[in-house]
């Protein structure tokens, strides 16, 4: 079991993260101090949650490019509701955000399930549609901090046992996803559908419905993150989290989740997101311009996908070696 862990993707990522932290600590000893570590985790919470949602979608051989737009729309709706009805308690807003996100996820899911449209096309379309709707409902105007109620803004910052609620939300999401993926029939179905859809059908799994559920779950997480994002940064406008969907996919790929489906783990997704989060926070500390971040995460994706391909190619029997390599 130990040797198995050492060879695993999670161990490799832990090692990479440890090296980054060690290198940064030589320049800035307080980088790994608990307070700063907690800050970094808090800063990465939303990425971790979205990466988990994206993970279940990718496990079923689909992809969801609309998560960032979904986040922005859910965030805008709850911010608008809050500015109109400031007295509405936060739990109700949370429920609204999550259900709204799930509805948007269900739109993606229905199109993939019932009409069999490739997920990349569906979510490419909904990506622009969701963002456009934000403009329509907000008239392109910003909702600023002074238009939000105090409790609305305080919720993600509220400290509980030393950590802000935002971090606890991420911890809770990780636990829920671990249970769903490892302990429920639905979680097994995600792997089965992605690993071999035809075989999954013969074992009695409804492939389309499983994919639909994956999109609904990813949508729900995006909706939740929508509220958290808007309340944390205390601003809502059309372009929030623009392009964030690619960072989420990057976190998944770095975390060893195979884009071909069926391979990946909750731990991998979390570590992949943390790796990106740590690099993002380390650059200013060691005096490298934040403009380097994009190129570094790009390189990390390419290296990660090359490593993924190598570990995946060992699995399964290759009958025609030449043909397999080139296809």
């Amino acid at each position, binding site marked *: 079991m130990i040797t198995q862990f050492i060879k695993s993707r999670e161990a490799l990522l832990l090692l990479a993260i440890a090296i980054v932290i060690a290198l940064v600590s030589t320049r800035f000893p307080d980088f790994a101090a608990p307070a700063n570590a907690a800050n970094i985790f808090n800063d990465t919470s939303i990425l971790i949650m979205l990466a988990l949602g994206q993970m279940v979608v990718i496990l079923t051989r689909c992809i969801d490019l609309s998560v960032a737009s979904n986040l922005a729309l859910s965030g805008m709706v709850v911010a608008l509701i809050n500015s109109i009805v400031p007295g509405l308690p936060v739990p109700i807003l949370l429920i609204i955000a999550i259900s709204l996100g799930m509805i948007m996820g269900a739109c993606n899911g229905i199109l993939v399930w019932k009409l069999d449209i490739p997920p990349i096309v569906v979510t490419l379309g909904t990506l622009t549609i969701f963002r456009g709707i934000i403009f329509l409902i907000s008239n392109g105007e910003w909702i600023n901090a002074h238009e939000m109620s105090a409790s609305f803004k305080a919720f993600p910052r509220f400290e509980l046992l030393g950590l802000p609620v935002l971090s606890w939300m991420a911890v809770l999401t990780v636990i829920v996803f671990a249970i769903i993926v490892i302990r429920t029939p639905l979680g097994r179905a995600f792997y089965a559908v992605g690993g071999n859809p035809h075989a999954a059908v013969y074992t009695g799994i409804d492939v389309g419905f499983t994919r639909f559920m994956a999109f609904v779950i990813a949508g729900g997480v995006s909706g939740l993150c929508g509220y958290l994002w808007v309340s944390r940064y205390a601003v809502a406008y059309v372009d929030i989290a623009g392009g964030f969907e690619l960072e989420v996919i990057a976190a998944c790929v770095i975390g060893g989740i195979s884009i071909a489906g069926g391979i990946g783990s909750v731990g991998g997704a979390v570590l992949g997101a943390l790796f990106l989060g740590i690099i993002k926070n380390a650059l200013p500390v060691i005096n490298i311009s934040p403009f380097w971040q994009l190129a570094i995460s790009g390189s990390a994706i390419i290296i990660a*996908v090359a490593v993924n391909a190598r570990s995946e190619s060992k699995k399964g029997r290759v009958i025609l070696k030449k043909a397999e390599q080139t296809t």
Partner: protein
Amino acid sequence: MSEMVARNIPDRLTSRAQRVLKSWETLLLAIAILVFITNSFASPYFLNAWNLSDATFNFTEKAMIAFAMAMLIISGEIDLSVAAIIALASTAMGFVMELGFGTPVLVLTGLTVGIICGAFNGVLVTRLGLPSIVVTIGTMSLFRGISYIVLGDKAYTGYPTDFAFFGQGYVWWVFSFELVLFAVLAIIYAVLLHKTNFGRTVYAIGNNPVGAQFSGVRTARVKFVLFLLTGLMSGVAAVCLTSRLGSTRPSIAFGWELEIVTMVVLGGVNILGGAGTIPGVVLAAIIMGMVTFGFGLLNVPGIVMSIFIGLLLIGAIALPRVFAMVKRGRG
């Protein structure tokens, strides 16, 4: 793409006229004419040669890349890094300009950077056998990231005046250099895809990569060439766009990759590979450009237009399937 979908390839039972009438391109042509008529009724400024000529700048640069992208998608791969290649090529051109080189060197630099980026994608996908969608998401960050490292929050301006011809010059009357280039490239790509052996192998690879391999098609090499072409076209688009804007920022052409893929899919190219035509892509490009222009004349914000494009993308694929389902339900 990784999806396995049984394709319905019917025998040639219908007549040629029937096939043409029922084809995707005919539908697109009808939509294009409809958009054109609606626009000319909606705004008195639409039917003006110079206004229409201005409107073509909305799509010419994107469409140049879309031609190469269409072939790439037909072969079963995709390149999401095209917009980032524009950024990198444009940055390289700015860098060379600062060194004091003239227009010919600038153009050559843009094209070369485009080809190198395409080759980089091609090597990763065909030599290392990595999935193109992830590779190009990675190179998309990498290429644009290099632009950000070089430029940061600054911009290159002050391109030589004769460089402005590519994006602002006119060949004859209202026909801009970009529009003429668009037309010439459309013909070249249509011939390449529909009339040459190379084009046939692209379809073969998209429909059945293993089968193509065993029929003697060098799949890896064909795909590599397609990545090169896509890189080259991104370089060409970078020259035109940089010349038109007269400046380079690292955020140049941000988000274009999704618009270009939308254009290709709307043009009837199967995102799973194996089917699609260049005329379809040309029509899709014109439709998207005209809709943008028409909405612009009516003071509709660009983002509302993007809702329309998104709906068009999903509707274009969903509606035929809904009709097929209803038909099946009855029969």
